[in-house]
């Protein structure tokens, strides 16, 4: 076969292979199961939730820093995953980690990002207490407390929250006078934002939702009833997982004593109901579940072993 014929044959073969591959790939794409409208909405909803939560978790990591202790993070993750699997939403995705902060707090971001502070781990007495706290946060995630609260905000509420946040960030009148209007998030920037903008609420985008979510996490808190619900569910999940039913109550009792002793006010006091009110709710659910008859694990040794590597920085431990 001479040169030109060989080249022509090679070209024809290439074209033929390309056409065949394209047809096959098209068929593969067509064979993918298409989602119904309602399924697509659920998928979009979940994607948006994860996106908002990821943004919020990123902000928390930026603000506090992640506590660099792989062993401790792994331990918290295993306890959290175990409790969450015993919750009402075991199929959801959860990610647990530790923030490098002395304050005693835990945060549940939409999409399953749950972060506890180093201060909280220093203050806890055993694994059962940690399990109940992580159960509380897992309940927030599973029931989409934060995400639904953000989506349900009216336009007026969004504007008010933003203006309050702006005022808090720039406290003096000279700086406030320099504030410019807050630009809208671009729909074109994210297809996920589109879902939120078509939701029934104020039509906020991912970034805006994350910012407002941070305001709720760190400054305003969720509705009290949602916190009470998370307490009830958290206790329930921990009991299902086999932990001591009264662990959360004991943790809160100790926390209240320490706060009283130190005349201490923290972010948690602003973002959560009062400890006495929370303990009443917990007592009620324990009573209804017949907790006195349940013997649960405390997990003190395992917890102490994991916590041994914690670098204690704070002074006022809840002991």
């Amino acid at each position, binding site marked *: 076969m001479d040169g030109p014929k060989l080249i022509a044959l090679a070209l024809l073969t290439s074209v033929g292979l390309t056409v065949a591959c394209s047809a096959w790939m098209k068929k593969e794409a067509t064979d993918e199961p298409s989602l119904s409208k309602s399924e697509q909405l659920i998928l979009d909803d979940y994607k948006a939730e994860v996106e908002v939560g990821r943004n919020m978790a990123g902000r928390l990591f930026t603000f506090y820093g992640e506590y660099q202790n792989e062993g401790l993070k792994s331990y918290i993750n295993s306890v959290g995953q175990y409790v969450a699997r015993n919750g009402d939403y075991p199929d959801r995705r959860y990610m647990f980690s530790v923030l490098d902060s002395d304050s005693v707090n835990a945060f549940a971001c939409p999409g399953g990002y749950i972060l506890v502070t180093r201060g909280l781990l220093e203050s806890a007495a055993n694994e059962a207490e940690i399990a109940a706290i992580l159960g509380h946060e897992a309940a927030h995630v599973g029931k989409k407390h934060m995400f639904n609260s953000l989506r349900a905000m009216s336009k007026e509420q969004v504007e008010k929250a933003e203006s309050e946040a702006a005022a808090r960030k720039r406290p003096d009148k000279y*700086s406030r*006078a320099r504030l*410019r209007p*807050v*630009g809208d998030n671009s729909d074109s*920037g994210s297809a996920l934002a589109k879902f939120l903008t078509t939701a029934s609420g104020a039509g906020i985008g991912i970034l*805006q939702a994350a910012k407002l979510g941070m305001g709720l996490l760190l400054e305003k808190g969720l509705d009290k009833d949602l916190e009470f619900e998370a307490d009830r569910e958290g206790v329930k999940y921990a009991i299902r997982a086999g932990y001591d039913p009264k662990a959360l109550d004991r943790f809160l009792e100790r926390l209240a004593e320490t706060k009283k002793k130190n005349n201490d006010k923290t972010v948690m006091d602003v973002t959560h109901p009062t400890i006495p009110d929370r303990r009443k709710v917990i007592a009620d659910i324990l009573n209804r579940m017949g907790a006195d008859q349940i013997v649960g694990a405390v997990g003190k040794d395992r917890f102490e072993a994991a916590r041994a590597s914690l670098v204690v920085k704070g002074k006022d431990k809840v002991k």
Partner: protein
Amino acid sequence: MKMTRDHRLIYLIKKSIPLLALVSSAASADQMHYRNVITGERAQGLGGAYTGVADDASGVFYNPGGLAFAQSNDISGSANAFYSKKVTFKKAFLGVSDFVEESGGTFAPFFGVMQKLGKVLPGLVGGFAYYTLDTELKDQDDLKTNLGALQRFHRAANIRAATFGATGALGYRVSPSLGLGLSFGYIKVDELTQVSQNYTITSGPNYLAQSVRESLIAHGAQLGFGVQWAPSAQLSVGATVRSGSYASQKYSQVVDKVKVDAGVIDASPTMANSDNPLGSMPLELRAGVAWFASPRLLLTSDIDFHEAVADTSAVTKTLYTRESVTNFALGSEYYMTASIPLRLGFFTNYDATPTPKTSKIGQPDHIDYMGTSMFLAWAQPNSQISAGIVVQKGTGKSQKNASDSSLQDIDALAYTLGFSATHSF
């Protein structure tokens, strides 16, 4: 914004053709205008009237005291997509036809970052900016034939020139209404001009060829002090003083000329160097007022003054002599929607070159500019991009013909299409 840079790049042709002369007083970068480039993403739209605001990264340039009022940490950059300039010397060519010089190109006038340093000292803000004060890249080629006794005239000019600065600054909020700032910057002037000219005429010295190469490199430092004071929440007054000096200046000129006159060849190459053509760096005083009328509306005004500086070099003589100059600027910003601010600015860009007089010869051009800027921005919660145009229109006088004291009118038009972005974090 580009100005007439090589207004000294004069092809000096005497009107009397038999004595047609070719003398070069070659180019220099435009050290004679102080608002050729409007620095800063927001400031650019406000025509440079920004001394009373200066609370973003460009505050490093306008007023380090304004940094103290920073709202957030910023990173900001401006990339000017395109600039163009056209300078028309009316009837400068043998008194009959216009001579036109055009240039164009792209350059990035500004990059800045600003970081709150509250962890070091509450109220402290640091910033750094790199900015282009002036730039030119010109490739000009002019050919004239059969103009009366002038059989052929050919001039090719290439200019590469830039003046830029890199400055670090600190702003400190002394009280809620008062900010003070200090800046320390490095300035570099780098110019290279190469001109080649040939002509042939039918009488007198009937052939002349000349090439001129000029180079100027200068390094300097500038120290600035800025203050910003808010007599009320909506009103802000700022002032800046900047003083500097050149640590080194190196100017060299090579003129290689061949003239053939009635069969006699006259070749006289010359070389000259100077270590002090620019003299000192002019003291700069800047003051501005900003009225934050509402979150949507901002009005600003600026005035800046540059002192006179004499060129005492024996080589460049008075080439770089600068008179004192006072410029003005007005700016406005209005948010048409929460995401779309419109910015307008008006400013002057007067020439520090002494105005040519008919009692002298060989004087450099003088062009006074009036400029306007219009920018639209697209604001997101943490970022903003701006696009717009800066137009400068100038008029002035030139003296293009050697040994001839007559003056020619100049019309100039320069515009810059600007694109900038700022991200807050």
